[in-house]
C-alpha cells in the first residue's frame, strides 16, 4: 500500500514547489501525480531561450526542470516516507530539440530506494513522453529521517 495517496502527494509537492523561489520565477508548475509518477510543466518563456534566432529552450533550462522534477519525485516514491534529499548527481542526455514556443513537460519516477539512497529516472518532452527531448538519471541522498508529511498536517489546520 502506498504511504500517501495521490491527493496527499499532490498537496505536498505543491507546498514544496510554491516555496522554491527559482521554480516560481520560471513558472514551473505541478502538472500531475499519478502513483509514483510526477509530472511538472515548464511554460514557454522568452527568458528561457538558448538560441535567440530559433527561439528554442536553453539546455540549462531543461537541466533546471529535470533536476527539479527528479528531485521532487522522491516525495512520490511508495516505498519510503518523504524526507530531506539533497542531490548527489544528475546525468542528462539531450535527445532532440523541441520546436520554438512550446511548453515542456518532465516526468520522473523513483526506480530504486534504499535506506540511504534514492535512484530516479525521468524524461523531458513536449508532445509525448514516448518521444523525449531529454532523458535524465540521478541519485539522491536521504540525509535524515525527517518525515515531511508534517507539512500536510500544517496545511490542513
Amino acid at each position, binding site marked *: 500500500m502506498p504511504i500517501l495517496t495521490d491527493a496527499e502527494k499532490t498537496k505536498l509537492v505543491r507546498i514544496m514547489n510554491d516555496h522554491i523561489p527559482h521554480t516560481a520565477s520560471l513558472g514551473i508548475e505541478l502538472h500531475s501525480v499519478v502513483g509514483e509518477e510526477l509530472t511538472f510543466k515548464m511554460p514557454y518563456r522568452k527568458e528561457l531561450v538558448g538560441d535567440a534566432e530559433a527561439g528554442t529552450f536553453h539546455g*540549462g533550462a531543461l537541466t533546471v526542470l529535470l533536476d527539479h522534477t527528479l528531485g521532487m519525485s522522491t516525495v512520490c516514491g511508495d516505498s519510503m516516507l518523504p524526507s530531506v534529499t539533497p542531490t548527489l548527481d544528475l546525468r542528462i542526455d539531450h535527445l532532440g530539440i523541441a520546436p520554438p514556443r512550446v511548453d515542456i513537460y518532465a516526468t520522473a519516477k523513483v526506480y530504486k530506494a534504499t535506506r540511504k539512497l534514492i535512484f530516479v529516472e525521468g524524461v523531458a518532452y513536449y508532445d509525448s513522453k514516448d518521444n523525449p527531448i531529454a532523458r535524465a538519471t540521478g541519485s539522491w541522498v536521504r540525509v535524515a529521517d525527517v518525515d515531511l508529511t508534517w507539512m500536510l498536517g500544517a496545511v490542513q489546520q
Partner: protein
Amino acid sequence: MTLADVIHQAPSADTLKLWLTKVPYACYLGIRAELHNNEILFILPKDKKLIGNPSLPALHGGVVGAFMEQAAAFHLIAKMEQPSLPKIINFSLDYLRPARLRDTYASCKLTRQGRFIANVSVTSWQEHIDKPNAIARAHFLIPEIKQQEK
C-alpha cells in the same frame, strides 16, 4: 547580429560580454565572464530569484548545472580554431556542497576536442576553487564546418 555571427571574434572581455548578451537565458541568470591570464572565469552573481532551498538558503541545484553548462559551451567556443555553435550531447553533474546565496564561479577545461566531439570539464565553487560546489562533464557535438568557410 546573432550568436553565430559574433563567435568568430577573438575572445576578449568585450566579446565574452557580447556573446552572453546573445543568449536570453544566460542574461536572465545574470551570467558574467572575465578574462584572467587568458583563462575565462564565469560568474553567476548572487540573486534571490535563483534560490532552490529557502531554509538554508541555497541556490537551486539545477541553476548551478545550467550555469556550468553555459560556461562549458562558451569555453569550448573560445578555444575553437574555427568557432561554430556546439550542441550539447550530454551533461553529467556531481553535486559536492550546497551553493549558498552568494556569487558562484566556474572555470572549464577542454579535456579533448576531436573532429566531431568535444569533452569539457567544469568546476564550480564559491569560497575557494579547492572547495568546489559541483563538478561536471559535458560532451558537445561540433557541427561540420561547411566547405566554403574553410
